[in-house]
């Protein structure tokens, strides 16, 4: 007999999942679940106690992430995960704050918060599930939708060009910038872990299929998308951020692009504004 298909022990990530909310809402073939799994795995591997984490999401399919992780988790308003996370971080610098949200959430309505948090080097980890569209509302054009791609509001193709997200992150001041696809599950988990363990604003873009609302309109089944991720990507750590456009016609560059040291917002604030040692004490009781 082959190895059993049914499970005697629980899935190793169950301790980190609100199992009473599974199945999640993500469609069959949706990559969000994969990105989420890699992220949980990184949290587990980091060895940091779970109550020293908080996850914050905005609104969107990916934004449901916060609803499934079994740590303190916040499903906020559309686009506002980062300022919510900023509030947490500045009030409790010892908490590891992870933002898990979508491209629409973080870069359409939420773009301003992103660039400002990066500028301040806010010590949070931002994981962006980039499925090139607004999945949840049915696949309208996003700031990440490729030029000429079809969407629910660009029937004749997207007339605009998308952001190069790593470049934008870098230009805004992010001190850690990486891009993976959900297929690069282990690299992704490693990147998330690295981002958690370091200080500073860390941004990880994760390409991920939305077969239902993006793939369908662009004649791409989810396994086609994954094939793209496999065949038409190339890993170039330290690549020039200016050369990171997502264009599967050429190769899409993956890897860790930026990893620099710069004082974080909370560090500098404490340094410049809490000269008295006693205040650190106070904060704890505060």
């Amino acid at each position, binding site marked *: 007999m082959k190895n059993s298909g049914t499970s005697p022990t629980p899935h190793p990530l169950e301790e980190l999942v609100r199992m009473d909310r599974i199945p999640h809402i993500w469609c069959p073939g949706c990559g969000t679940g994969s990105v989420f799994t890699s992220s949980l795995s990184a949290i587990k591997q980091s060895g940091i106690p779970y109550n020293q984490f908080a996850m914050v999401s905005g609104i969107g399919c990916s934004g449901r992430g916060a*609803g499934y992780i079994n740590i303190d*988790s916040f*499903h906020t308003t559309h686009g506002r995960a980062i300022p*919510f996370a900023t509030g*947490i971080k500045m009030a409790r610098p010892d908490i590891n704050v992870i933002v898990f949200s979508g491209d629409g959430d973080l870069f359409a309505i939420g773009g*301003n918060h992103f660039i400002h948090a990066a500028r301040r080097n806010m010590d949070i980890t931002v994981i962006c599930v980039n499925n090139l569209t607004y999945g949840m509302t049915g696949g309208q054009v996003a700031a990440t939708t490729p030029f000429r791609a079809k969407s629910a509001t660009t029937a004749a193709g997207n007339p605009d060009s998308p952001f190069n997200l790593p470049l934008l992150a870098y230009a805004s001041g992010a001190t850690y910038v990486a891009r993976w696809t959900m297929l690069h599950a282990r690299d992704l988990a490693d990147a998330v872990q690295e981002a958690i363990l370091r200080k500073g604003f860390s941004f990880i873009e994760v390409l991920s299929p939305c077969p239902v609302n993006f793939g369908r309109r662009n004649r791409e089944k989810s396994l086609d998308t994954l094939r793209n991720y496999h065949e038409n990507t190339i890993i170039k750590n330290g690549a020039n951020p200016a050369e990171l456009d997502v264009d599967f016609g050429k190769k899409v560059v993956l890897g860790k692009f930026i990893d620099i040291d710069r004082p974080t917002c909370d560090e500098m604030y404490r340094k410049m504004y*809490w000269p008295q040692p*006693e205040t650190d004490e106070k*904060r704890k009781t505060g």
Partner: protein
Amino acid sequence: MKSHVLTGEHFINGDEACAEGAIAAGCKFFGGYPITPATEVAEQMSVRLPQVGGTYIQMEDEIAAMTSILGAAWTGVKTMTATSGPGFSLMMETVGLAVVTETPCVVVNVQRAGPSTGLPTQGAQGDMMQARWGSHGDYEIIALAPSSPQEMFDLTIAAFNLSETYRTPVFIMSDEIVGHMSEKVIIPDARTIKTISRTKPTGRKDRFKPYQPGPNGVAPMPAIGDGYNVHVTGLTHDEKGYPVMSVDTQKEMMDRLLGKIRNNRDDIIMTEEYLLDDADIAVVSYGVSARTAYTAVEQARQNGIRMGLLRLITVWPFPEDKIRALSKRVKGFITVEINMGQISREVQRCAGTVPSYLAGHTGGAVIPPDDVLKIAKEALA
């Protein structure tokens, strides 16, 4: 540990007094964005918070400012922001999130004359209905209206206390005039200042439900890091905090949210009465306009008109019962407010057939007491 409350007598403006009130109430986080005439609250907080181990952060806009104070509130601290009309409008979506996630926080609106950019340096009370209805969907809100710098101090403390008691955002609906007016403000000894902090949960962590109400209809609130693994969402949610997309859950949640305010009106509503007992005309007012109203009452009495004042310290929830009771014995209501009729509509709603007048105008200055007198005379003629 030395107290950071500036006990003593000060001659400061309303905005500064508000900041001192926040410090005295134990506020530890302020997310700000400058706007006339509320900027001084932020400026003062930027100086005062580091002195008490707190954090001031100036966010990129008012939406971020408002959102940041919710995030910070979930770490267990008392948080605040301050703005004026345009920023208040921008905060409205996030106010809804605060209400629904039952996140305590204090939002100060130092009102200026609108709509839109309007008269940025001139006072008005034109955002009173917005305070009640500015975010989409049904909700109840608490809003206080200080009439002086001293009350900016006192009511800021009260706002924090209400906010912590009821796990809800509380608005301080001030105005440019009170915000920029300087008067003597007495800050009492820190030990005599009553401050309330949210109830923390105590039971088993694995069975904890962050929205299971306690005796006063309010659930205890854990902080991030306490190990309760809370989930917090703006979606309709059950007592566990989990999203449930059903009409029944919506009803349960809303009944709880509305109920905790509606059922505690007596605790929340503060009013002040002056010469109302024998009044033919009840003047209803709040904030800076109550000072006009008070003066008008005195002048009316000198003129032999029996006028009295109901000053709303709590504007929302609206003291309906008081107006209903008064409507049984007065001949008319005059609401004094710097707008074209906002709270006066509420008075009208509760006044039955007793006529309800407005002494108001389009903003930029206080209402002169004469306007009130004139209306009173007409009403009684």
